[in-house]
């Protein structure tokens, strides 16, 4: 696993710049439907995924670009997916909220809050079985937000994972808001208390510090690999940008600018940058710009999928559905 300070910086910075580029492409109309920017929360995806192996499995959320990139997805194919091109990770069929790359253990972003938890538990449990009970000792990671801890199915999934000692990390990205709802108005008790209720270790870490997240994740991953079951990690973080890019047009008032400005003073990219040399940083930054320039060029120059294939992949068996046309 790539987990040096430089690696952490590279991933954090890549996500930041990818998202900034993606937002531009939304404003340009290249990305239709908008995105949920991950800007500000990069340390979590970077830190957690640095503790993982290529064979490990992750699932993500509506705010999933960071996780998908941190687990190793090609930024070009990712951007092509956001632009709905046939060269995209999902051949343009999924878009921002469903980006997946099963070859890298990325079992997909998910547009339904809290839905990915149980899927991760099943996938991690099965990966063990497939490997004959030991083998790769695959670990699964489910990323979700503070809003998701109020979803029953996620809490059910935590119980299953703890009960069956499934090697899973439940990573809660607590950015203080579910769209416009504050954590205080959503969560009675505590988030870590939900993990404790099911008898799993639950800790809170500084989600703005890639290294702090990595350390916590590594401990939980080792525990899971050793067969000691799941853990919950609550990462305290903040969303710099809009809940979704529609906010850029239709401003909704739920947090004041000072709060945002204040939060921006703690920047995961800068925190991690301070741990490498300016020279190294410059090299990495330059490299990332090149990668993203190429990614954008690749995405915008890629073909749009043929409408004739709109229902391709609907059934894995290739079964064709009756069309909706009358005649």
């Amino acid at each position, binding site marked *: 696993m790539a987990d040096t300070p430089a690696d952490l910086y590279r991933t954090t910075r890549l996500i930041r710049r990818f998202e900034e580029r993606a937002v531009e492409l939304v404003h340009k109309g290249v990305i239709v439907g908008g995105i949920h920017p991950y800007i500000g929360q990069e340390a979590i995806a970077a830190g957690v995924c640095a503790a993982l192996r290529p064979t490990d499995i992750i699932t993500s959320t509506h705010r999933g670009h960071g996780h998908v990139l941190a687990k190793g997805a090609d930024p070009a194919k990712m951007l092509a997916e956001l632009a709905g091109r046939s060269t995209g990770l999902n051949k343009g069929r999924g878009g921002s*909220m*469903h980006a997946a790359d099963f070859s890298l253990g990325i079992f997909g972003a998910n547009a339904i809050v809290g839905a990915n938890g149980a899927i991760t538990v099943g996938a991690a449990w099965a990966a063990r079985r497939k490997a004959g009970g030991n083998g790769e000792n695959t670990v699964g990671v489910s990323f979700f937000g503070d809003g998701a801890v109020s979803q029953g199915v996620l809490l059910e999934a935590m119980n299953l994972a703890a009960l069956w000692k499934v090697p899973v990390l439940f990573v809660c990205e607590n950015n203080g808001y579910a769209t416009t709802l504050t954590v205080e108005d959503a969560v009675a008790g505590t988030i870590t208390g939900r993990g404790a209720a099911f008898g799993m270790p639950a800790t809170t870490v500084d989600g703005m510090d890639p290294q702090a997240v990595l350390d916590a994740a590594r401990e939980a991953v080792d525990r899971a690999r050793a067969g000691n079951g799941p853990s919950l990690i609550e990462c305290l973080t903040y969303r710099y940008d809009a809940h979704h890019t529609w906010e850029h047009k239709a401003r909704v008032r739920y947090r004041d600018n000072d709060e945002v400005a204040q939060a921006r003073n703690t920047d995961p990219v800068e925190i991690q940058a301070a741990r490498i040399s300016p020279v190294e940083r410059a090299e990495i930054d330059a490299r990332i710009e090149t990668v993203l320039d190429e990614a954008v060029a690749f995405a915008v120059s890629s073909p749009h999928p043929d409408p004739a294939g709109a229902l391709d992949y609907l059934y894995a068996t290739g079964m064709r559905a009756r069309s909706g046309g009358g005649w």
Partner: protein
Amino acid sequence: MPRLSYQKALNRALTDELARDPDVFVLGEDIRVAVSNVTAGLFDKFGPERVLDTPLSEQAFTSFATGAALAGMRPVIEFQIPSLLFLVFEQIANQAHKFSLMTGGQCTVPVTYLVPGSGSRTGWAGQHSDHPYSLYAHVGVKTVLPATPTDAYGLLVTAIRDDDPVVVFAPAGALAVREDVDYADLQPVPLGVGRVHRAGTDVTVVALGHLVHDALAVAEEMARDASIEVFDPRTVYPFDWDGLIASVSKTGRLVVIDDSNRTSGMAGEIIATVAEQCQLTAPPARVTRPDGAVLPFALDLDRAVQPSRAQLVTAIQGVMKDG
């Protein structure tokens, strides 16, 4: 006369009912800041006791509303995305809907489930583009699908006043519709009474929700070739069978355009009921989503899966050709 937008009509219906009846309250996600616009101003006007922002616990707050209704209140739930109506299917179809019969009529469950922006919105992909009104009609939950601002106002008001659970789908494709209306003319619209938007003699086109506007455009386009009657049931359950039969008995031809999947969608029900009760001069036709449709993200693919005007034109030409 003022221009009334569809969204404003929903907002006005909520405002009027909250003002009229102290037992009415609204709950849902991000409704205080009114992310969907539909609840704009309600929090300031009616306060925290009657406008509740909920955690992301759709199943619990849907049954919370059932309980509140059993205790005598009239909750209105706003759902942020249409597929949440899958998530709470148990709570509505197996709980709220069944209380009246199972208790021998001891109680009522007057809950309104409002889905502003049902169906495909641009670029929201597979899990945010569903239009599950046929599912609710099938289980027998009263289901409303207004096409115009005045019907949106009138049907939402009626839904809130109804003593049974009612699901109100406000199609994303209709939210932009505006209408010149004198606010004083806004009235409750009864459930189960359809509306003929355009009279015709050759063929009855039944259009659901936002597709009413596509049907009207097509009828206009084809006016020289065929006299098309556009029938809008407005509520898919209960359905205005008498109104439909009357129209089809006159025209003898039937085409349905419906944003549901094909198999066992409302279009199928409409054709089946007509087939049982009328002799048509030509086989009926329907334009729907494909079987098992999942909306792909890429816009061209998304559009290719939705019922289109072109398909409607072809279907109409098809039934006109026959008989």
